[in-house]
C-alpha cells in the first residue's frame, strides 16, 4: 500500500518534471504550439512501474551492501574465468570463431567486427590508464586522433605506407601521452579528468581550425588501405585483410597487457590506484609510474588510430569527439576496470548491441547514458571484476606447520 502511494508520487513528480520538454513543442517561427499529452501518459505509467523495480533493486543493493565485489551475480562468471580448465577451451573457441569470422560473413558484418576489435584495442589501452593506474582520462580520443592523422598526413605528404606508420603512430601517441602526462601529474583524480578532457578538445579544435595542415572540418579522404605485397585487393578482401591485422594487434595487446598486469610495473600501477601515500611509502616513484601508464595507454590509441584511418580511408575531426572518449571509457567501466576479458565483453556490448538495435538508433545514446548511471549504482565493478593472480611458493619445501591464530 505504502509502495503504491510512493510510486504514485514518483509518477506525478516525473510527469511534472517532463511536462514542458516532452509535452509541449513550440514553433517559434510560426508561433504555433504542439501539445503531446500521450507522452505524459507514457511517462506517468512508465515511472509508476519502474519505481517499484527501482525500489526493489535499491533494497537488494542495501542488503548486499558492505560486502565488496566478487559475490553476487557475477560469481558464476568469475569462477568460470578463474578455472583454467574451463577458461582456456572457451578462449580457444572464441579465438577460432573470431579467426574464421570473415570467411562466413559479408562486408558489413566484417566491418562491424573490425570496429569492435578496434574498440577492444582502445579499451585495453585505456584500461591501462584508468583500470590499472586509476587515472581517469577523458581525452583518450586525442591520441587516437594523433595516430589517425599521423597516417593520413604522413601518407599524403611523404607517401609513407601503412606498415611504416603503424609503429610511428604508436610512438607519436606515446610522446603525446608523456607531453600531456608531464604537466598534469600533480593534479588530483577529477581535476585530471577535466584537464584531459580539455586536452582532447584542444586537439580536436586544432584539427578543425588548422585548415592548411589538416584540411579542417572537411577532413582527409582517399587514405590508402594497407597493401599486401602490392596486390590489388577488392574492397571486401581489403576489409578481411584489415580484419586480420586488427585481430593480430588485439592478440598482441592482450598479451602485452596481460604480461604487464602481473609484473612489477602492473603492481605499481594498481598500488598507485589504491593508495597513493602507501604506494610512495613503498618506494614507488609516483611520477614515473603515472607517466609510464599514460605513455603505454596512448601508444595503443596511436596504433588504433593508424588502423582506423586505413580502414575508413577518410577521417575528419568529427570522428574524434568527446563522445568517442566517453564510449571507450564506458567499455572499460562496463567490462570491469582492470579486467581484460571484461574489456572484450564491454566492447562487444557497446559496439555490437547498438548495431543490432539499428531500428532504434535514436534511443541508442539515451540508453547508453542510462546504462552508465545504472551500472555505477548497481554493479560498479562491471560485468567482470578483476581477478588477481594467485602465486605459488617455489622455495624450499619446509612448509610451515599450522600458523598462529
Amino acid at each position: 500500500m505504502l509502495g503504491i502511494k510512493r510510486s504514485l508520487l514518483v509518477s506525478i513528480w516525473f510527469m511534472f518534471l517532463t511536462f514542458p520538454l516532452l509535452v509541449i513543442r513550440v514553433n517559434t517561427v510560426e508561433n504555433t504550439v504542439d501539445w503531446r499529452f500521450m507522452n505524459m501518459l507514457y511517462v506517468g505509467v512508465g515511472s509508476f512501474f519502474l519505481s517499484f523495480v527501482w525500489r526493489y533493486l535499491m533494497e537488494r543493493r542495501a542488503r548486499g551492501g558492505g560486502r565488496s565485489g566478487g559475490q553476487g551475480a557475477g560469481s558464476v562468471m568469475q569462477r568460470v574465468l578463474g578455472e583454467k580448465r574451463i577458461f582456456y577451451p572457451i578462449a580457444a573457441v572464441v579465438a577460432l570463431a573470431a579467426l574464421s569470422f570473415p570467411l562466413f560473413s559479408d562486408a558489413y558484418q566484417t566491418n562491424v567486427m573490425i570496429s569492435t576489435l578496434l574498440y577492444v584495442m582502445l579499451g585495453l589501452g585505456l584500461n591501462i590508464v584508468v583500470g590499472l593506474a586509476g587515472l581517469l582520462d577523458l581525452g583518450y580520443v586525442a591520441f587516437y586522433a594523433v595516430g589517425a592523422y599521423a597516417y593520413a598526413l604522413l601518407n599524403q605528404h611523404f607517401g609513407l605506407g601503412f606498415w611504416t606508420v603503424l609503429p610511428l603512430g604508436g610512438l607519436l601517441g606515446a610522446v603525446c601521452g608523456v607531453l600531456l602526462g608531464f604537466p598534469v601529474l600533480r593534479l588530483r583524480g577529477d581535476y585530471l579528468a577535466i584537464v584531459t578532457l580539455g586536452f582532447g578538445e584542444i586537439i580536436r579544435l586544432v584539427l578543425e581550425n588548422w585548415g592548411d595542415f589538416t584540411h579542417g572540418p572537411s577532413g582527409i579522404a582517399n587514405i590508402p588501405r594497407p597493401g599486401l605485397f602490392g596486390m590489388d585487393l577488392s574492397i571486401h578482401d581489403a576489409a578481411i585483410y584489415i580484419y586480420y591485422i586488427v585481430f593480430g594487434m588485439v592478440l598482441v595487446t592482450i598479451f602485452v597487457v596481460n604480461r604487464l598486469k602481473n609484473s612489477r610495473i602492473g603492481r605499481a600501477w594498481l598500488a598507485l590506484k589504491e593508495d597513493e601515500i602507501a604506494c610512495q611509502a613503498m618506494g614507488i616513484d609516483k611520477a614515473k609510474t603515472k607517466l609510464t601508464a599514460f605513455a603505454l595507454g596512448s601508444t595503443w590509441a596511436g596504433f588504433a588510430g593508424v588502423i582506423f584511418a586505413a580502414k575508413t580511408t577518410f577521417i575528419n575531426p568529427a570522428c574524434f569527439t568527446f563522445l568517442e572518449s566517453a564510449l571507450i571509457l564506458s567499455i572499460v567501466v562496463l567490462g570491469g576496470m582492470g579486467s581484460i576479458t571484461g574489456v572484450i565483453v564491454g566492447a562487444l556490448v557497446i559496439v555490437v548491441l547498438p548495431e543490432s538495435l539499428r531500428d532504434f538508433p535514436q534511443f541508442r545514446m539515451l540508453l547508453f547514458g542510462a546504462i552508465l548511471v545504472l551500472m555505477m549504482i548497481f554493479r560498479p565493478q562491471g560485468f567482470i571484476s578483476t581477478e588477481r593472480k594467485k602465486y605459488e611458493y617455489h622455495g624450499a619445501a619446509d612448509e610451515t606447520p599450522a600458523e598462529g591464530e
Partner: protein
Amino acid sequence: MLVGVNADRVISATFVIGSALAAVGGVLIASHIGQINFYIGFIAGIKAFTAAVLGGIGSIPGAMLGGLILGWTESFATGYVSSDYEDVFAFALLVVILIFRPSGILGKAPTQKV
C-alpha cells in the same frame, strides 16, 4: 549529525540553488544569442567548469572571478587574435592555471591527512 544539520537536505538545496542559477543563465544567454540547441549545455558546462576551477573550485567568489577572467580571455582572444581558436584559448588557460596553481586562484590547497 553532531550539530543536527541534515546533510541530505543541504545537498539537495545546493543542487536546487545551483540549478536555478544555471537556468537564469540559460534563459538570458539564449535570448541574447537568439538560438538554442540540445548540445549547448556541453560546451557551456565545460567552460563554466573551467571558470569554477580557475577561481578555485569550492569557492563562491572564486567562481565569479573565474567566470569573468574566462569571459574576458575569450572575448579579447577572439577580438584580437582569431575567432577560430576561442575554445582552444579557454582550455589552454585551464590547463596552464591548473599546472601552476592546482587549486585555482582563490582555492585552498587540500590538506593531506596521513
